[in-house]
């Protein structure tokens, strides 16, 4: 295994841990996007450029967009429910 592969594996591990530790959904969507980018570099370094490209578009475009739109939709519902509970 080359040094580059080692480095990328560590970066992926750190980014994955960061995704889990961030608790706020909005930030988490962004951090998860970075995790996806790190994963795509990992795939590329391990010789799978096709998978890397799919990973980029899914993790950095499709998923964050859907999560952000869903968060925008439920943002007001959330506030209403908190008011009811109080």
């Amino acid at each position, binding site marked *: 295994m080359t040094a580059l592969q080692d480095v990328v594996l560590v970066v992926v591990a750190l980014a994955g841990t960061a995704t889990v530790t961030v608790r706020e959904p909005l930030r988490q969507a962004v951090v998860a996007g970075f995790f996806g980018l790190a994963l795509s570099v990992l795939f590329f370094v391990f010789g799978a450029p096709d998978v890397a490209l799919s990973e980029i578009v899914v993790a950095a475009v*499709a998923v964050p967009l859907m999560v952000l739109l869903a968060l925008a*939709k439920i943002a007001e519902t959330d506030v209403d429910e908190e008011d009811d509970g109080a």
Partner: protein
Amino acid sequence: MSRRARGALFGAATVVLAVVLVSAVAELPRPSAPPPRSAKLSTSVSLHERHGTDTVAGVTFDLRGFDTLGEELILFVAAIGSAVLLRAQRDPELLERAAHAADERRPRTASALRALGALLVAPMLVLGGYIVTHGHLTPGGGFQGGVMLAGTLLLVYAAGQMAALERMHPQALVELADALGAAAFALVAVGGLVFASAALANFLALGVAGHFLSGGTIFVLEVSVGVEVTGAIALVLNELLDQTLIREG
């Protein structure tokens, strides 16, 4: 489950996962190792029998082309399903008002962001189109390029041109792309039955490996997948966006 039991379960599961992952990575073939037989075979089949230089495209659209047809139909049905569900209670006039209200109410997007968005649209379209049409030659293909093209539509929204997007009415176009792409893939599959030996068998000229027009049906399938994925992803994102606007309005 108590907090302690959950912690113990988490710890045990993490240890097992770590051991499995580390041993799996340690078993990965070295870069210097000779490629396995399956890799040589699939490369040889893609190159000699289909004249395609991207082995992955050769595998997805030839060796397991029927699986890919199923995947395309899954995406098609999923997009249509979400559109049907989300549209059930939607009123087009209400939506249009909501879109305009959202446009007016929204703090004006910074001009730098608008300029950057507008600037990125054309290169994104070109890059997406390139990736879709070169799937048989280089890594990438219909799916990857299609998501990029769908993302470009949303870039127009991010640049603050919601009213422009509404006027263009991409909804009909997006639905048409979704349906046409899926239909084209299915028709190529049937074409294999009619003009050749089996479903998805090649019935077009193979061309010279490495040239733009080569790979026979693989090229047609890549483009139809690109059109379909663009439509499907844009449709889902559009529906979610409409929901957000109604909620705000």
